[in-house]
């Protein structure tokens, strides 16, 4: 029983960075921008998050953990959103190829993260690490409630980023299904010409969705640094999480609700082997890590062959829109 609960908790903790990346990329792709720069934006968010918290700690006389945590969230969001802004400017305004721009953003963001991570480390004398209070802020559950047996551990023991991630996913789901603006965004991603004719500002929607989506991906990167790596900058720490998020978008068939499920399932898969005692050796467990990608390919093939309209990539994804000259 305890093992099961421990496993479920570990699955949620491991799945949260995927959740941020996936929901961020879903919002981006819903606007018709296939941004392959998720990995890069996660790096950018990650390094900006730890840098923000670190500089705050250095400058404040009595740094408070929670303040540092909030600064980290804001910094990671803003920095990754800036990366997405560059992407939007290049693809929406300058009409550059989306695939190539996204990959270039990943190259840039990966370099950016590692570069400033090391610069920061050199400055801090070796490696950069946040204070205990800040680490605490990134690990405590909900006070009081988390002490309830079983339920407390299962529902209330997580750090605040987990709840933030779930909240963002739920809000995104509501946004797409219930709000006027969400409907308009879907129209932009499906058929920009139709949206344009209906009086929707396509350019503005694309910029906004891509930047907000990118910012959310950035928080995912910060989670990896602050929670997964316990507040230390580790070289190459994002290490493919961004690409899994891109895969999860397909797995979740562009729905934030299914992204919630998918992220925690993928998170669960990634920690399952520690709990199941399958007797997997190192090698087999490496093969096991490939499962998510294989599942994703199958989802891709099935949706492709069935030509499912409902669960397919937004129709204009990957294609830049511009109104023909009249």
């Amino acid at each position, binding site marked *: 029983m305890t093992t099961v609960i421990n496993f479920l908790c570990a699955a949620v903790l491991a799945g949260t960075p995927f959740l941020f990346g996936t929901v961020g990329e879903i919002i981006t792709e819903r606007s018709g921008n296939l941004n392959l720069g998720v990995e890069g934006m996660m790096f950018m968010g990650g390094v900006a998050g730890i840098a923000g918290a670190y500089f705050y700690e250095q400058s404040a006389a009595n740094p408070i953990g929670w303040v540092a945590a909030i600064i980290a969230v804001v910094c990671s969001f803003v920095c990754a959103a800036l990366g997405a802004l560059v992407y939007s400017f290049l693809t929406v305004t300058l009409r550059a190829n989306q695939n190539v721009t996204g990959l270039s953003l990943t190259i840039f963001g990966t370099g950016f993260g590692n570069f400033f991570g090391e610069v920061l480390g050199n400055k801090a004398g070796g490696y950069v690490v946040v204070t205990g209070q800040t680490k605490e802020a990134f690990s405590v559950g909900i006070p009081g409630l988390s002490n309830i047996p079983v339920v407390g551990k299962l529902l209330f023991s997580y750090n605040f980023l987990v709840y933030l991630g779930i909240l963002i996913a739920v809000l995104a789901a509501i946004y797409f299904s*219930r*709000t*006027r*603006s969400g*409907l*308009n965004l*879907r*129209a932009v991603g*499906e*058929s920009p*010409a*139709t*949206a344009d*004719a*209906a*009086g*929707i500002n396509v350019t503005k929607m694309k910029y906004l969705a891509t930047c907000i989506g990118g910012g959310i991906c950035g928080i995912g990167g910060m989670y990896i640094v602050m929670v997964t790596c316990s507040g230390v900058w580790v070289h190459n720490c994002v290490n493919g999480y961004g690409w899994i998020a891109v895969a999860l978008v397909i797995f979740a068939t562009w729905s934030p609700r299914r992204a919630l499920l998918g992220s925690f399932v993928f998170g669960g898969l990634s920690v399952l082997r520690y709990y199941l005692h399958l007797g997997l050796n190192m090698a087999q467990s490496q093969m096991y890590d490939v499962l998510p990608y294989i599942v994703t390919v199958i989802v891709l093939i099935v949706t492709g062959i069935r030509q499912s*309209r*409902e669960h397919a990539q937004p*129709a204009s994804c990957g294609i830049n829109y511009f109104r023909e000259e*009249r």
Partner: protein
Amino acid sequence: MEHEIAISLEGICKSFGSVKANHDVSLEIRRGEVLALLGENGSGKTTLMNMLSGIYYPDEGTIKVNGEEVNIRSPKEAFELGIGMIHQHYKLVEVLTAAENITLGLKGGLTVKRRELVSDIRALTEKYGFELDPTKKIYDMSVSEKQTVEIIKVLYRGADILILDEPTAVLTPQETEKLFAILHNMRDDGKAIVIITHKLNEVMSVSDRVAILRKGEAVATVRTSETDAQTLTDLMVGRKVSLEIERPDVDFEQKDFLKVVDLTCIGAEGHKALDSVSFTLRSGEIMGVAGIAGSGQRELCEAIAGLYPVKGGAILCRSDTSSGEVRENIVGMSPTEIIKKGVAMAFVPEDRLGMGLVASMDMVDNMMLKSYKRGKGPFVDRKAPRAMAERIKDELEVVTPRVTMPVRRLSGGNVQKVLVGREIASSPKVLVVAYPVRGLDINSSYTIYDLLNQQKKKGVAVMFIGEDLDVLMALCDRIMVLCGGRVAGIVDPREVTKDEIGLMMAGERREEEVG
């Protein structure tokens, strides 16, 4: 009793480059009336209405809505004036429901109140007699349902002046009837309705007044009750223009080259794009194909070239080997095999470069599009294509600094010369040309006509799909008239009048006309 004037157009002019689409057009649109805007293809009907819907802005002239002068600069501004236009190509998001499409882009609360929206839409549909489930997704809908969504979209935004561009083009007769009933309901509700069409029978059954446009100018406005199909046709096509196009006679025995038997194809919308089409194409003749846009011309061309799936019937080609009997069915053959049989097609699509030419390639590379496989070895031979490009450039007077210039940088007329020139150069037995003079000036057009005549004299069987009836009548030996995917008749242009062809295009059967 005269109805209240909703819109009046005064002296509207609009040019695209050197082409005058509308010249000094004045027109009144009244409430409580259905106005039919009648005219041939290219007579400027859609352009004129696009100036009301905010797509184009007139070069000259005034637009008054409810007596006040207005500037309509965008579709949004048109909506604000209560003008809504339903275009031929629907703009709908496939994965959303009808209701979602209808509310798209509208201002309002933060959330979409689906229940209210749906009941509002239901109220609208009941009021005018539409049949529509607002919760149905667009991709599950028939064409007629999609059209309904477009109309309700416009009504929901409060439009009381509705313009419908060729609304019946893709509808079945039953759906058309229903639509007309609804239009009458809306008219009786006091709305102003404009329907753009070139089908006479529809004009007669739906409209209260008819405005006729010819070559960009408004030639007349008449009450439907005081006119008849014959008068309208006269007004629409005008007097026969005598064109100095040659129609040479050939002095050899004409043989059957291509025999199309009961050809049936299904269109993208699920209707019969071609319905039991049968005809025979003979050597040394130019057979014209007339018909309003979308009557099956494109499908016919592509089916012959092996590019369009054939549902039923046969296309028989004269065989090289035996006694030259026309019995080899090319249906099901690959385009390459059909090219080898000597069937060449030059199709000039609306955007000119969509098919047949590769825009970013130069003339030389475009010359070898169908022949690049010739010769042994893995390499392409550019010598012959280069010589061919040079020859076409000289003979057809293609204006380009050099044959290595990408064709997308050539002007429209020159692009067409390149395309038709290449097809002719492959010395085909059967040559299919579609809209080869589209958008060309007079001189370039004559070059193309001469080319076709030369081919005819050489004994090639030419099929010419055209838009201008005057040209078809002057150039062709026979004219096949298509209407809604069916052959309305095959006539000798020397024996019929333009009016008669016009009536056939508009859906009146030749038998009825004669009998």
